């Protein structure tokens, strides 16, 4: 298991994600950071639960309209705490698989054969995030 807070590489991944202009990511990150220490422990990520931002209790707002609610189509937007945590886990999982197939780690780049191995590893996993579990 890889700790989310151990190692400069992981800290760089989290710092990069926080620096990117990803919608709601920072807010989601802060909500997941229960002890407000500026980093996510594995427990904080693992116990994060998907719930819409802005609705702490998860209940829909009663507007008095009795019509059946229209189901919204899922989007790729970051709308939950878990998505931010998942984003970290996916990037760490990719990094893990990347390092695993990089036969010349000093250059930290994949040639054609290494990239082929990487893609095969990715496709043989149900979830990339499972690589860090």
């Amino acid at each position, binding site marked *: 298991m890889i700790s989310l807070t151990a190692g400069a590489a992981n800290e760089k991944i989290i710092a990069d994600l926080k620096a990117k202009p990803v919608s709601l990511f920072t807010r989601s990150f802060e909500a997941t950071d229960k002890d407000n220490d500026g980093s996510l422990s594995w427990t904080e990520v693992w116990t994060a639960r998907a719930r819409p931002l802005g609705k702490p209790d998860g209940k829909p707002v009663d507007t008095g309209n009795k019509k059946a609610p229209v189901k919204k189509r899922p989007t790729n937007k970051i709308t939950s705490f878990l998505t931010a945590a998942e984003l970290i886990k996916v990037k760490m999982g990719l990094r893990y698989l*990347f390092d695993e197939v990089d036969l010349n780690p000093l250059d930290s*780049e994949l040639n054609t054969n290494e990239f082929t191995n990487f893609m095969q590893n990715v496709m043989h996993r149900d979830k990339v995030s499972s690589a860090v579990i």
Partner: protein
Amino acid sequence: MANIFRMADINEDKVISFEETWNFWLGTKFG
């Protein structure tokens, strides 16, 4: 696979950095 490699190799230097890997991943239906 060669096509995927070329798609991921943004700066066309014939090798894939981790950032290129990550950007490629974000561009897939999984990202």
